């Protein structure tokens, strides 16, 4: 299958390993990955901070870039959530009904990585090997905005060598929330403190999730504490093999 990678600006800029892993994984499974280079950012930060009018040009760019592809994948539940639940709203707000219907069309073909693997490609055992004690944080937008459900866990359970430990109160937000983390830094940090407490209680040495943003937040806190737990994107675990 020919799959267009919507890399997300965050993975592109700060967490390229998650994006590279997505490419390696899909190619290993026998698919062709293309990277439309005109893509930049979905505009979620603008919409969520109160700047939907500024986001309009980014929505237009995203729709133009990805309209030609039948299947689009992103290693992020949050960015897929933005494409599905915000793009058409931004277009309608600006009175651009044509852009809104195109955005809805693109959204229908856009999948978060675990959705693509389980629903479209029909695999749960991707042949991965990852010998680490790992806990999974279901990010809010994966869980409640696009409802990936237990797809990531089904994928992780098939990974050889992986010791999957359940995260207590997993469904609570880590406190990231985009600009919330700086506008309400104290509250955000208090939420992070509890999330880290639960991660540390698992005794895992790896905390994984489907969003680089939440992992940047949890990882930034764990690093500050020198907690000795690292954050790794789900794609990197699924791309790992005995050979790597």
């Amino acid at each position, binding site marked *: 299958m020919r799959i267009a990678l919507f890399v997300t600006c965050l993975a592109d800029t700060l967490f390229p390993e998650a994006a590279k892993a997505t490419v390696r994984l899909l190619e290993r499974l026998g698919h062709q990955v293309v990277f439309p280079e005109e893509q930049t950012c979905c505009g979620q930060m603008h919409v969520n901070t109160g700047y939907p009018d500024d986001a309009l040009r980014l929505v237009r760019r995203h729709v133009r870039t990805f309209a030609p592809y039948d299947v689009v994948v992103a290693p992020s539940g949050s960015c897929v959530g933005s494409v599905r639940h915000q793009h058409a709203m931004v277009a309608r707000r600006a009175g651009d009904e044509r852009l809104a219907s195109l955005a809805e069309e693109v959204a229908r073909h856009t999948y978060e990585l675990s959705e693509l693997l389980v629903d479209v490609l029909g695999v749960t055992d991707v042949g991965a090997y990852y010998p680490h004690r790992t806990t999974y944080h279901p990010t809010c937008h994966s869980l409640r905005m696009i409802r990936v459900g237990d797809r990531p866990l089904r994928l992780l359970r098939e990974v050889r060598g992986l010791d999957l430990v359940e995260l207590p109160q997993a469904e609570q937000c880590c406190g990231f929330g985009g600009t919330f983390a700086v506008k309400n830094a104290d509250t955000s940090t208090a939420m992070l403190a509890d999330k880290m407490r639960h991660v540390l209680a698992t005794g895992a040495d790896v905390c994984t999730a489907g969003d680089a943003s939440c992992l940047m937040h949890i990882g930034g806190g764990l*690093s500050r504490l020198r907690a000795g737990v690292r954050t790794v994107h789900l794609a990197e675990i699924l791309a790992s093999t005995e050979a790597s």
Partner: protein
Amino acid sequence: MTSTFLGMPTTAPRGVGHLRGDQSFPAAARRALADSQLRRNLGHATATIRAKSAAVIAEAPDWQQLRDAGAAIKADVMARLPELLEQLEAAVTAAGGTVHWAADAVEANRIVTELVAATGSDRVIKVKSMATQEIGLNEALEAAGITPVETDLAELIVQLGDDRPSHILVPAIHRNRAEIREIFLREMPGVDPALTDDPVALAAAARRYLRQTFLHTPVAVSGANFAVAETGTLVVVESEGNGRMCLTLPETLITVMGVEKVVPTWRDLEVFLQLLPRASTGERMNPYTSMWTGVSPGDGPQQVHLVLLDNGRSAVLADEVGRQALHCIRCSACLNVCPVYERTGGHAYGSVYPGPIGAVLSPQLTGVEENASLPYASSLCGACYDACPVKINIPELLVHLRAAHVTAQRRPTTESIAMAAAAYTMDHPALYAAAQRAARLTRLAGRRGRGLPPPLSGWTIGRDLPQPPPQTFREWWAER
């Protein structure tokens, strides 16, 4: 009533009531977050209610259909509110009640104060009510020499402690039993000095105090959870029975109700009386549901008044997206699941309406610029939307109000300039790639990013910055 157009509806006036805090949310939250007792009380209480509610919701096989029905009834009410209110007025009047219309808190306070004064009583007993907290009725009554006595146990604790409510349903959620014992010992008239902090003993002390008050006060003030337009029936839902005392014993009963509480038909109550107890207290059925229709001769209050309160609600109704905040049935489910509320408590929101619903309701009632920090008091995690029994899309409303706040700025701000610049850059891939390379310069921000300027310093108070990679993804792709 004629429907003369008087211009755009106004927001709730300043200087009266409790819809505005004296600090921004981040500043008030900082103080609350440092209170370890508060954090413990809230963490314990919200976790307990969450678990209880989740268990009884899981028993209802048609919960999602009930939510859809609740949302549909409320949307219908908002679409024809004036017509339903006039129908309600006619039905209440026909049943022997008197209906008053209050455009705002000042008018409502004046109407209630005059009605109480006309009875000659210098004391009123109160049923727990958000509307009267919203308008600051207690302060208005006290200014007129009338003593209001809160009879809901938690509201009584708040009143005796000279405190403010911090939760819609559990106003004293920020207090534990040891603190409640101290408040009772200090403030409750005639309290036994040997009072312990056993919950049963605390409830018994309140019972002794309140019973005398019930028997000797001829006027009660209540709110209403629902009002049925077709029958003129008012409904109060409570769990102690103290509300029932207030609604049946006095000669005069005055009810202050936000205009959005009307429902079209008696049958609509079937939906809400299933939704409300499971979502709020985690009960299958509400313990005390009181309903009254005007005056029943020789039985219960013989003077029955209904004050219909606007206080900014028409302004909320005028916003087609924002109006779903008026669907709220005050169950507090969104507070109990909110990770922000659980850590900051209700006082940080500055308004009697805290938590996620408060963050979207208060700024709309006052005008967004007077509560501008509230729509940002959320990580947009979406737990509130899932929990809401009438499916109010709170995350959508928060984002909508953030945009309203941005639009209301007359001059460009540092943030708006940065956002426009970011959008422009991201709309030009060559500039975007250059900006990505520049991001590597954050290595210069010092080890792990400490020492960044505001607002980015907010990040580094508790989190390290990621190390920028040697190569972006697109650089790697180009080299492949």
